[in-house]
Each structure stands twice: as C-alpha cells, then as structure tokens.
C-alpha cells in the first residue's frame, strides 16, 4: 500500500513540476540582449536533457516501487547486473555532459571570451552600500582618476572625483540611473567602493559580481528599448534587498537628450 501511494505521489510531483516548467508558470523575461539567445538556448537545452533524466528517474523509481512493493518469493537482480548501469551512466550521461559543456562553453565564450567592440560606449559603474552610480566620460572621452578618500556621498561626490585638479574629471557625468543607446555595444567597468555587490539585469541575461579592489569589464548590446531593473544579487548588508537602479535603453536621439539633461544636472 505504502509503495503504491509513494509511486503515485512521486509521479504526481514529477508531472506537476514538469507541467510548471513546460508551461512557464514562472519564467524568464523576454531577452533584450544580443548574447541572450545563446544563454536561453543553453537553458532550454539543459531543461531538455536534465528534464528527461528527471522524469525518467522518478518514473522508473515510482514504477519499481509500485511493482515490487511488498513482493514475496525469491528476489532477483536486474539482468546483467550493474555493468549496463555503469555503461549507461558513462556513455549516455557522459555524452550529455560533454555535449552540454561543449555547447555551453560556446555560449559562455560568446559572452566572456570575445573582446568588446572597440567602438563600445564605455560606462563606469560603481556599487556601494546600497546604491549604484554610473559615470560617463563626457565630451573628452576620458574618465577622471578616482580618489577614494574624496568620496563624500552627502556632497554627491559618489566616485571620489577631483574636478578642481583633474581636468579629465571635469566633464565626467555621474548619474543614478544608467541610460544606454539601443543596438550599440556597451562596455561597463564594474568596481565597488566597499563590499562585494552584483550587477544583475534579468532581461539582459547579465549577472556579474563587483569585486572590491578590481575593475571588472562587462560588455553587451541591448536590442530593445525600455526601462529595466538592475538589482544586487551579492549579499552586501542590511540594504541588500533595496539596492537597485534602473537601466534605460533609449533610442540614440533620446539617449543624447538624456545625457545632455544629466550633464546639466552636474
């Protein structure tokens, strides 16, 4: 009896889970980046491979429990013993994981091993407890050097710039929201002013931690305008859940206007 109930419960759980995954009850938002489809494809591929293993595993478990629960008589082993099982694991699962690592490494490489487009728009991103700030180089195309000792957030010097002494810093535009032109390669330089943070935009399929002390490059191209949330996914302290910023993907002309407005606010 217990065996039959167990089998039924396991099958039910399997089917419900599979249903939820297949019908996308809760699912990824639509991708807005150039590299995203590769990642989505990889996730789908993995769902296929892993999902089959999941369903097969649970169903076989359930059916054996159903069939042999409370059986009597001389027990027998599966014909062939463990050898086919081991061979199955090595060959089938081995092929699967090889395939996954091969295709997956291409998806990963497309994001991380490709050099950023030299014409990319460079934006400097600084994370701190518990906000992001962004910096555009301004007309001169050069970022002013950082002086952490000058950081004074109350005075809105979030980056520790010294425009009085550094000519490069004079026209730097610091913003609380990141605006980017659509269809243009973007190169972000992530650095943190205190602890580890993360830059996660679900729609962009980008997640990258900030490492204090390092500046980490991230590059992507957004292909759809809109306003998206950037959230922190690396535990950074009490305001972690409230650490976010907005990413506005704008048309080139909107972007130019936006940046002008931001420059006026400096």
């Amino acid at each position, binding site marked *: 009896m217990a065996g039959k109930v167990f089998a039924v419960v396991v099958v039910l759980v399997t089917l419900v889970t599979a249903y939820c995954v297949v019908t996308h009850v809760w699912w990824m938002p639509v991708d807005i980046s150039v590299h995203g489809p590769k990642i989505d494809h990889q996730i789908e591929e993995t769902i296929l491979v892993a999902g089959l293993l999941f369903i097969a595993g649970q169903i076989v478990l359930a059916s054996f429990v159903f069939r042999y629960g409370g059986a009597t008589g001389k027990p027998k082993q599966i014909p062939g013993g463990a050898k086919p099982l081991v061979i199955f694991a090595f060959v089938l699962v081995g092929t699967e994981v090889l395939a996954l690592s091969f295709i997956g490494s291409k998806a990963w490489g497309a994001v991380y091993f490709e050099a950023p487009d030299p014409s990319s728009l460079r934006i400097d991103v600084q994370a701190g407890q518990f906000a992001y700030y962004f910096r555009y180089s301004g007309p001169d195309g050069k970022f002013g050097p950082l002086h952490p000792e000058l950081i004074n957030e109350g*005075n809105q010097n*979030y980056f520790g710039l010294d425009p009085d002494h550094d000519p490069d810093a004079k026209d730097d535009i610091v913003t609380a929201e990141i605006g980017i032109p659509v269809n243009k390669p973007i190169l972000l330089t992530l650095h943190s002013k205190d602890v580890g943070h993360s830059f996660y935009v679900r729609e962009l399929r980008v997640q990258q931690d900030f490492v204090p002390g390092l500046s980490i490059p991230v590059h992507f191209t957004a292909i759809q305008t809109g306003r998206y949330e950037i959230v922190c996914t690396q535990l950074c302290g009490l305001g972690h859940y409230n650490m976010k910023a907005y990413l506005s993907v704008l048309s080139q002309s909107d972007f130019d206007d936006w940046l002008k407005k931001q420059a006026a606010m400096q």
Partner: protein
Amino acid sequence: MKTHQRIGATVFALLLIVAGLLRSTPGVRATAMGQVTGTVKLDGPAPHQKPIDMSKDPSCAQTRGGAPASGENVVVGTDGGLANVVVYISQGLNGDIPVASKPVTFEQKGCQYVPHVVAVNPGQHMTILNDDKTMHNIHPDPKPGGGNNAFNKSQLGGGPSLDVTWTAEEIAIPVKCNVHPWMHAFIVVVKGPNGVSGGNGSFKLENVPPGTYTLTAWHETYGTQSQKVTVAEGKPVTADFTFKAK
C-alpha cells in the same frame, strides 16, 4: 536594632531632600533667564547645490510628490540668511548645566533628513522617525574614542520610532543613510542652550542664564565663528554672524 533603622531612614530622607534641592536649583534659576537671538548671513554667492537623483528608490519620489531635491550643504534663504548653523555657548557656562527635557525629533522625510542639522544636549533624548514608505538605516559616525557610540540601525517605513541619547559633547557627528547614500545630516552635541538657524538665517537661544559668554556658530561647510555676548536677566540680546562664501 530599631534605632539603627530609624537613624538610617532619617539620613536617607535628608539625603533625598538635599539631592532634590540640588536638582531643583536650575529650575529656581530659570525664572530669571535671558535670551539670545540673531541671524546668520552668507556673504557672497551661494555655491551651486547639485540636484539629487532619487531614481534609485521610486518610493522617495512618490513621498515627495515630485518635489525636486538638492544638496543641503549650503542652504541660503532669499535675503542671504544661512540655514543649518548651530549657535551655542562655547565658553562661560559654569556649574551644573541643565539638560533640555524635551526630546529633539529627527525625521526622515522624502528621503532627506529633517532637520539637516540637529543640536542636542548630552543626555537629551532624540526621537528618530521614519515618515517614508521605504526603509532607512541610521548610521551616525562619531569620532572613535570621543565618548559617543556609533551605531547602524535600520528603521522600516512607518516603523516604530527610535530613541537615542548621546553621552559626550561632539561638534558634528555625521549621519548617513546607506540605502539612500545622498542622505546625510549632522548631529551637534553641545551642553547648554543652543539654536539652529532656520531658512532665513535666524536663530534663538532660550533659557540663557545671565552672564558673559562666548557664542559660537558652526556650519558644516564654513566652520566656526565666535563672539562675546553679555546676557542680562529677562532681556533678549542680539548677536549676528556672517560667514564668507568661499
């Protein structure tokens, strides 16, 4: 046995009376208190205050009803009055200086601190309120070893108020909210009467016992200025300060 107890009780009662008398002395003196009033002005053009972009937390803009916010390092009124200047008596107060009994309120409102500069006596209660819908953390940074303890506490939107006291005098403990990094304020812990200049630069020190004092004005950007004043019984004295814009 009984006698001992009786003597003990009498001594204790006497001590209580003496203590009570000692404690009540300021109250006796309060009948003949003076007052210092005045204005603080800024000489020269006020520096540009950057507007604050609060887009990080949409609830801030909501609570503000769209009112723009800008930095508060130098707040100058229409007639050149300099706000957020703490005026206090730096020299001349002697003996047992009374502690203001009324708690000071320190609010977080529209993702800014109200007031931007707050003056308290050591031992005076300070009530911290959060009127916003969002969470703030109150993170004052007193000088280490100065006698005041740093803390870092969050307060949920509309959450229960916090009650804080400071133990030692300290000119300007910076306070920050890390969730909204632009939020900053100063807590000035000084003994005796004090006043903070308002939007038009005017300030008022009440309950000043008669005497000659050094009156000091402190501003977060322009530093301190002092002058001598003599306060007579029941008569308001005027003292003005002018800070030079850099």
